[in-house]
C-alpha cells in the first residue's frame, strides 16, 4: 500500500539532521575499525 503525504519543513530539516549524524557515525566507525586494525596488526596493542 502506498500513501502520499506532505512532509513539513521541520520534518525535512530533522530528517536531514539525522541523516548527517548517521553518516558521521558510520564514517567514525570506519575510521575506528581502521585504527583498531592498525594498532592490532602493528603489534602496538600489546
Amino acid at each position, binding site marked *: *500500500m*502506498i*500513501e*502520499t*503525504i*506532505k*512532509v*513539513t519543513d*521541520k*520534518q525535512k530539516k*530533522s*530528517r536531514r*539532521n*539525522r541523516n*548527517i*549524524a548517521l553518516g558521521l557515525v558510520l564514517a567514525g*566507525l570506519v575510521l*575506528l575499525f581502521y*585504527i*583498531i586494525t592498525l*594498532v*592490532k596488526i602493528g603489534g*602496538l*596493542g600489546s
Partner: protein
Amino acid sequence: MTVINSHETTGVDGGFHLSEAGARDFFELLKPRVMSLVVFTAVVGLLLAPGQINPVLGLISILCIAVGAGASGALNMWYDADIDAVMSRTAKRPIPTGRIEPREALAFGLTLSVFSVTILGLAVNWFAASLLAFTIFFYAVVYTMWLKRSTPQNIVIGGASGAFPPMLGWACVTGGVSLDSILLFLIIFLWTPAHFWALALFKMRDYGSVGIPMMPNVAGERSTKGQMVVYAVLTAAVAVGPYFTGLASAGYGLFAAVLSAIFIYCSIAVWRMPDGDEKMIAAKKMFAYSVFYLFAIFSALLADHFAAGMFALAGGSL
C-alpha cells in the same frame, strides 16, 4: 509531495507520523550528565590500574564504556517513559515530550549496547566487554525493569550499575579484577544510597505520585535519614581504603578522611532535620555535596597517582 511506505509513517495514533527528532534528541537519550560521571570514574580506574595499555586502545575503551552507559540510559528512558511523563524532574525527556517514539529509543539503546560491547571485546579484551554487557543488563533489566518499581532497596542494589565504570576501566588494562578495583567499586556503591536518598527526600512527592517505592515513601523520613548516616560512615571507611591497600599515599588518605568527615557531617545534618520539613535545605546541601565529594575523591586518587609517578621519576633521575 513525497511518497512514503505507510509502515514507516504510521504513528501510535494510527495516523501518519514522521519523526521530528534531531540528533540532539537522541544524544539526550544517552543521559549525558550521568555519562560524564561514568567517563570520569572509568578514566580514573583505567589510569590507576597496574600495567599499561596502548593510549589509542585506552581512548577506545573509554568511548565504549561511555556509549555502553549511554545505551543503558536510553533503555532506561524507553522503559520508564510512563513514569517520566509524570515526574517534574523527567517530564521534559525526549520520549514523554513526544520528540522520540519509544520503539526508536529501544532500537537505539539495543544497537549501541551491541556495538559498544562488541568493539570493546574486539579491540581491548573480552573480560572487560563481558563486564560492560553485565553492567548494561544490570541497569536496564535488574534495576530499571525489576528493582526500581518493586523494592525500596532499588537504588541500593541498583547502585552497583553506576559503580562498575572504574572497575571496567581497570579491567580494560588488566583483564581482570583485584582488591583495589573492588575498592573503587565500593566507594561508588556505598555512596549511592546517601546521595540518591538526599534527592528522594526533597522529590518524595514526585516518586510517590508515580508509585515508585523510594525509601522515604516506604520506610518514612526518619528511617531513611538514619540509613543515610550509616551509608555515609561506610562510604567514609571505604574511601580511605586505597591508602591502606597501597593504591594511594598518606596524603590522599588524609584528604579523603577530611572530605569524608564532612560527608558524614552533612548526613547528620539531614538526620537532625525535622520530619516534614518543607524546605529540606540540609537534604539539598547533602545532595550537592555528595556530587562534589565523589568527584573530589576520584580526582584526588588521580592526582595522587600522578604525583607518585613524578616523584618516582625524579627519584630515578637523581
